[in-house]
């Protein structure tokens, strides 16, 4: 899901940079209002978790690879705005230091993975789990938060890839950037995530939430009834 340099046209990556900058600004304002001293170590650890879990490339035998992002569990425990900052930091370091994701695509990758995944995950969790004490709803909600969050991020990435041949080609119709149209990009990205990678993000989200519920239930942001 890390779009490299050369796959997106400027008319795609520039607006997505703009969108991410707006969200970074909003997130910083939010942190200045909400982030407490005792949450800071957790935020740093959430970023480390997201960074490391993305190194676990999961193979589809004979095909392709993918991985979880760890953005969903961060959104549930620390809130979507804090997750936005943690995951964006991870993505920027991945691009600059490890060449994972392009420099021109930092805005797009942050929008897809650090904005969309945390917010979709948070809303899905709140919708299903609410503020209730039903454990079943909390863990079902957490699984589906991870599952739908990662799938939404993948789908948006596929759309960004898939519109390139439409908006950027030369006179003979050859693509200038990502070559595959929507009808190839969407099924490829959506299916591999829905059948494997999103399930793993879901299991991680529910599993880690369970660990927090056991040891520090009061620290789970998504169960405090705050608004995103």
């Amino acid at each position, binding site marked *: 899901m890390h779009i490299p340099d050369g796959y997106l046209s400027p008319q795609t990556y520039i607006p997505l940079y703009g969108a991410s900058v707006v969200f970074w600004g909003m997130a910083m304002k939010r942190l200045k209002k909400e982030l407490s001293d005792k949450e800071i170590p957790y935020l740093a650890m959430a970023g*480390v978790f997201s960074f490391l879990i993305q190194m676990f490339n999961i193979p589809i035998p004979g095909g392709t690879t993918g991985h979880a992002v760890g953005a969903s569990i961060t959104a549930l425990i620390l809130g979507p705005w804090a997750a936005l900052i943690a995951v964006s930091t991870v993505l920027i370091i991945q691009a600059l230091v490890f060449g994972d994701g392009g420099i021109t695509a930092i805005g797009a990758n942050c929008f897809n993975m650090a904005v969309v995944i945390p917010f979709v995950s948070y809303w899905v969790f709140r919708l299903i789990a609410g503020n209730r004490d039903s454990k079943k709803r909390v863990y079902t909600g957490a699984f589906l938060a991870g599952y739908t969050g990662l799938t939404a991020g993948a789908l948006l990435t596929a759309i960004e890839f898939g519109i390139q041949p439409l908006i950027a080609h030369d006179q003979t119709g050859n693509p200038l950037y990502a070559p595959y149209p929507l009808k190839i990009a969407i099924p490829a990205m959506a299916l591999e995530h829905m059948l494997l990678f999103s399930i793993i993000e879901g299991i991680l989200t529910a599993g880690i939430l369970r660990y927090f519920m056991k040891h520090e239930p009061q620290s789970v942001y998504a169960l405090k009834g705050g608004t995103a």
Partner: protein
Amino acid sequence: MTTFQKRLLLFLFILAILTPAGMILPEVFKAGDAWGEWGIDTIQEMLGFVPEGMKKLSELWKAPLPDYSLPDDGQSLSSQIISYILSGIIGAIITGGIIFIFARLNKRKVKD
């Protein structure tokens, strides 16, 4: 630091040690690149050409530790594994450090 936080740190450390699974398993199962993250050579093979814009942008940035490996990490599996783990630890420390400092500068100002 609380006991719970110490346990989380230990969990992260174990995770860092286990990361080579994410490098080895895709090779064992002959899984290729992630969809949409092919290198220029692979694109050339897949399409028979490299799109013009892609050619221009793809070499824009030379990352110091490309693909989570240290420079000159050798060809043997064990040195690749160590290189992958060390890259992970370096990345983890940079990530954790930057977020920690950033969060200290941007936290809520009132005491809790």
